[in-house]
C-alpha cells in the first residue's frame, strides 16, 4: 500500500482509512486533504483505501436520480460553442432505467452559465506568440462554425451580422472553450466587443486589445478594453483570419507597444453569414 518513496507510518495508514471510510469531521477531512496534496505517498495510501473499501458501496441498491439531473449536469458542463454532435458510441445494452430523455437546454442560458464559469478561470498566461497563434487558430475554427447562430440567439440585430458579410470571433481563454468576449467586425470598420462574462481585471491593471492580420508577425495595439467591452472604429474591416487577443497590461496599456502581460482571451475573425 505504501510505495518506496518513504514508508508511511502506521498512524497515517489508519488516518487515511478513517478518511476514506468517512468518519472524520470537517476539520479532520480538510487536514487530510491538505496533507495528501503535499505528500504523494500519503495520497497513494488514500487511493489504496479507496480501491479496497469501494466494494462496500455495492451494499446499497441503485436508486435512479431525478429525471432533471442530467439536464443540470449537461448545462453546467456545456461548451459555449455548439459543437458537432459527438459520434454516437456503439452502445451495448443498458438497463432500461438508464435510457433517459436527452434534454438539450436552450443556448443562451448555457452560454451565460459557461461564460460565468469562464470568468474566474481567466488564468494568467505568459505571452508566447507561438502558443497564442495555435490557440487563435483553434478559436477561429469555433468562431466560424458557431457564431452565426450564436449572434442571432444573443439578440444581436440581424442587420448587424446578416447584412453585408460581417466577421465575428469568440475570444476564448487559453485553457477553455468558454468565450469571454464576442467580437463583431462590420464592413465599415466598426468592431464591437461584447463581454459574455464578468471579466475580472486584476487591480491596478487594464485589459488591452490587440490585432494580428493573417501572415503578420507582430500584433498591433487597439487600445485599452473596458471589462464590459467597447466599440472601436478601424480604417477598414479586418481581413478574415485576423487574430484578436486581449492581454493584461499596466494601467493605460502596454508601455512597449507589444503585449507585456498574459494573454487572457484570443480568437480569430471569420465570416458569419446567416
Amino acid at each position, binding site marked *: 500500500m505504501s510505495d518506496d518513496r518513504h514508508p508511511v507510518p502506521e498512524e497515517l495508514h489508519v488516518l487515511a482509512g478513517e478518511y476514506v*471510510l468517512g*468518519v472524520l*469531521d470537517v476539520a479532520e477531512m480538510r487536514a487530510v486533504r491538505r496533507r495528501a496534496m503535499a505528500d504523494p505517498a500519503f495520497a497513494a495510501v488514500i487511493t489504496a483505501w479507496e480501491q479496497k473499501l469501494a466494494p462496500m458501496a455495492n451494499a446499497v441498491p441503485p436508486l435512479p*436520480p431525478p429525471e432533471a439531473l442530467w439536464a443540470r449536469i449537461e448545462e453546467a458542463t456545456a461548451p459555449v460553442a455548439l459543437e458537432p454532435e459527438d459520434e454516437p458510441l456503439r452502445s451495448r445494452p443498458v438497463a432500461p432505467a438508464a435510457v433517459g430523455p436527452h434534454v438539450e437546454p436552450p443556448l443562451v442560458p448555457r452560454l451565460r452559465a459557461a461564460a460565468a464559469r469562464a470568468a474566474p478561470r481567466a488564468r494568467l498566461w505568459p505571452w508566447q506568440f507561438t502558443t497564442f497563434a495555435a490557440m487563435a487558430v483553434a478559436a477561429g475554427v469555433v468562431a466560424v462554425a458557431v457564431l452565426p447562430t450564436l449572434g442571432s440567439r444573443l439578440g444581436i440585430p440581424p442587420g448587424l451580422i446578416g447584412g453585408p458579410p460581417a466577421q465575428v470571433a469568440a475570444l476564448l481563454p487559453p485553457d477553455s472553450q468558454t468565450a469571454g468576449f464576442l467580437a463583431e467586425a462590420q464592413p465599415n470598420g466598426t468592431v464591437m466587443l461584447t463581454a459574455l462574462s464578468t471579466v475580472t481585471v486584476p487591480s491596478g491593471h487594464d485589459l488591452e486589445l490587440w490585432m494580428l492580420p493573417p501572415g503578420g508577425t507582430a500584433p498591433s495595439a487597439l487600445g485599452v478594453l473596458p471589462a464590459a467591452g467597447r466599440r472601436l472604429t478601424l480604417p477598414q474591416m479586418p481581413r478574415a483570419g485576423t487574430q484578436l487577443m486581449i492581454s493584461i497590461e499596466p494601467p493605460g496599456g502596454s508601455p512597449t507597444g507589444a503585449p507585456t502581460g498574459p494573454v487572457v482571451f484570443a480568437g480569430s475573425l471569420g465570416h458569419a453569414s446567416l
Partner: protein
Amino acid sequence: MDGEELSNELAGLIRLVAAGHRGAFRRIYDVYAAQMHAIAMRITRQAPLAADAVHDAFLQLWRNAGRFDVSRGNPEAWLISIVRYRALDIARRRGREVAEDDIPEQVDEAPDPLAQLASSRDSAALNACLAQLEADRRRLLVLAFVEGLSHSEVAERLKMPLGTVKSWIRRSLQSLRACLEGAG
C-alpha cells in the same frame, strides 16, 4: 457484461471524457448515476442534497477525467470515491440535523448490508477480510461507510462511548489492512 468488462469500458470512457467526448460522459451517467445517487442518498438523507452530490461528482469527472490514472486501479472505485466525498462534504456542512427523523422512505435500512455485498464479484477480498472481524465491529464499519457517519454520529447511533467507537474503527482498519495486504 460482467464486472471486469464494465471496468474496462469505464476506463476507456473516462479517457474519452478527458478528451471532451460528451457521448462518453453521457454513457457513464447512464450506467453509473443510479449507483452513485444511491450512495449519495444514504449519506445525505435528502433527495435534493443527493442530487447535488451527484451533480458535483459529474462536474468533477468532466473537469478532472484527465487526472484519472489507470494504474490507480478500478475506475469504479474512483467514481464511487468522488461521489462519496461530495456527499460527505454536503452532509457534514449541513450538520444533518434532520438525520434522525427525516430518513426518506426509499432508503431502507438493510438488515445486513453484507448479504448484498456478498453478491458483488469485485468484493471477494474485502468480503473475506471483513468476515474475519467480529460481527459487531464489521457492522459498525459497514454502517459508517454506507451511511457516511462521523465517529460521533456512529457513537450516537449505536449508543456507544465515542472512545470505544474510535478504537473499534481504528483496530478494524488495521486488521483489514493486514488481511487485504496479505491477500495481495
